[in-house]
């Protein structure tokens, strides 16, 4: 009885971690609140639609494509927007409004180009390439649901969770095992001191911004499978969800997001299973309680003032 929501919660939670981690990376490094985060997710979903419907390929192939595409988009956008924003009096607050504007632009452009209809991809198509490859090698892959501890779950959930774990692992490698990551963490902890030691803060930030958007786009590729369908207006809700996850983990600590995502995923599944009429309320109440008791999130540094 309890096993199903718990395991499903962990699967969703891993995906939710991926959904939030890009937002958190951008905030942690630049102190910028990317309110258009959900819209990049939505664009990632449209990359998946393009790969599947136009090219007829496995949507899983959209993952590397979306990542590379949006890292480039991110670096360009960074150059256009952020240096100017940083000159203003209150960049942290104004970033909220700037990126709200950007989210409006993205949503409007996608609506003009593709209309407002709901789009989805049949769930079994995700990973079809792997199944085909396994068949060619003579193995007998089982399509359809995957069994974990005696409970069966849609294969798409499992694939999303696995890709999320890989992506989060790569973020860890990037932050803790590469030179760029060390510089990024330096900028994260003390921007001005990093600048004073001769780090090219702008370049580090541009990379982090690009990677943040790239991660959002990867999460977006799986959005049609995890949420059923995606519309151009999907972005706003996704942004709020991402915020809840990020703050649960701790704003400004990208790896804390992994914990936040799992906590959120399990709560989400438990409430949906046992108390569905109050399910909508949960993330927000959870968020406020966490913010008031531990404003820095479950794993964060102290940020409270006055």
């Amino acid at each position, binding site marked *: 009885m309890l096993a199903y929501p718990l395991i499903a919660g962990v699967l969703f939670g891993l995906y939710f971690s991926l959904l939030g981690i890009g937002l958190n990376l951008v*905030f942690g490094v630049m*102190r910028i*609140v990317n309110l258009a985060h959900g819209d990049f997710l939505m664009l990632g979903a449209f990359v998946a639609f393009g790969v599947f419907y136009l090219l007829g390929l496995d949507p899983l192939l959209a993952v590397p494509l979306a990542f590379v595409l949006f890292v480039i988009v991110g670096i360009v956008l960074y150059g256009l*927007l952020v240096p*100017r*924003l940083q000159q*203003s*009096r*209150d960049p*942290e*607050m*104004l970033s*909220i*409004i*700037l990126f*709200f*504007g*950007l*989210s*409006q*632009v*993205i*949503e*409007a*452009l996608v*609506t*003009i180009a593709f209309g407002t209809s709901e789009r989805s991809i049949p769930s079994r198509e995700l990973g079809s390439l792997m199944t085909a490859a396994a068949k060619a090698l003579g193995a007998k892959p089982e399509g359809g649901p995957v069994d974990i501890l005696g409970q069966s779950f849609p294969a798409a959930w499992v694939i999303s969770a696995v890709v999320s774990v890989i992506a989060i692992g790569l973020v860890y490698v990037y932050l803790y095992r590469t030179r760029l990551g060390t510089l990024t963490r330096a900028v994260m902890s003390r921007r001005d001191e990093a600048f004073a030691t001769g780090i090219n803060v702008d370049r580090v930030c541009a990379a982090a911004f690009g990677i943040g958007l790239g991660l959002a786009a990867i999460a977006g590729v799986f959005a049609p499978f995890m949420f059923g369908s995606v519309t151009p207006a999907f972005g*706003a809700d996704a942004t*709020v969800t991402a*915020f*809840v996850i990020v*703050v649960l983990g701790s*704003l400004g600590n990208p790896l804390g997001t992994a914990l936040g995502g799992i906590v959120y995923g399990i709560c989400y599944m438990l409430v949906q299973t046992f108390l569905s*009429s*109050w399910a*909508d*309320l949960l*993330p*927000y*109440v959870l*968020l*406020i309680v966490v*913010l*008031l008791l531990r*404003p820095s999130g479950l794993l964060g540094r102290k*940020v*409270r*003032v*006055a």
Partner: protein
Amino acid sequence: MPSFVRHMLLIVAPLMAAFAILPGVYDNHLLLFNFVIFLILAQGVNIIYGFTGYLPFGYVGFFGAGAYGFAIMVMHLQAPAPLAVLAAGVVGVLLGLLLTPLLRLSGAYFAIANLAAALAVLHFVANPALESITKGPYGVALNGTFNPTLAYIGAVIILALTLGFVVFLRNSSFGMALQAVREDAVSAAMAGVNVVKMRVIAWLVSALVAGLAGGVFAWYVSVFYPDNVFSSDFSIFAIVFALFGGVATIMGPIVGVIILYGIYNLIGFTTPQYFQLIYGVLIMALVLFLPAGLVSLATRRGWNVP
């Protein structure tokens, strides 16, 4: 002439006169009413963001709570409408008191927590389990109190009171103290300003204003759903209008509402997605090129803008 009286005579009085005369010469009374509502909300945002630096991203929470306060007074206690509007203000203040702990948070944390709070109130009110009290998601219909003319007059009176408070903030040591707290809370406290008390007063006044506006809005429209009165458009429009004109001034939010809400009504209804595009671009341009709002065009030249 003291500047307080001058501002009341030169800004508030002509605006009130305009809103008193306009219904006689212009037929779209709903539009006029909406202008008044957005003027109130933009000034409410001005009080809390302009003078204290807290960005209320869930400002609509107070507005919606006020609307439901009005509806519950009318539905369950058969209160006369003006009394119910006052009760709506009280509901706004009570919600403000409940959320006072959020003021401990700073920067983006506050904005996000406030957004979550507004969504929590929405999901609470819209919960089917509370149907006997709030009518849940099915919406409220108040036939007995429907009186657009009186509601319009009520809204104009609330606008006058709100503007009066902003004029007071602009011309009093209280307003100066708030701005000092916004710039540097520690220094202000050293100079003898009671930081916490000041912030809480501004926060509650801002909540009161939005609660009253919500009440009078409920009176005017009489039929509404939770999603209408808790629409995040209210928060975002109010913030953008206030910022566009320039916060911490009396004129800024007024100019912002008249220009931007004017544009919205010219093109917003016929082609919403093109409006959204223009709006998004406008918001981004505002933050990048004119972060202190339209009034900064004048203040840069050394002119004093009230």
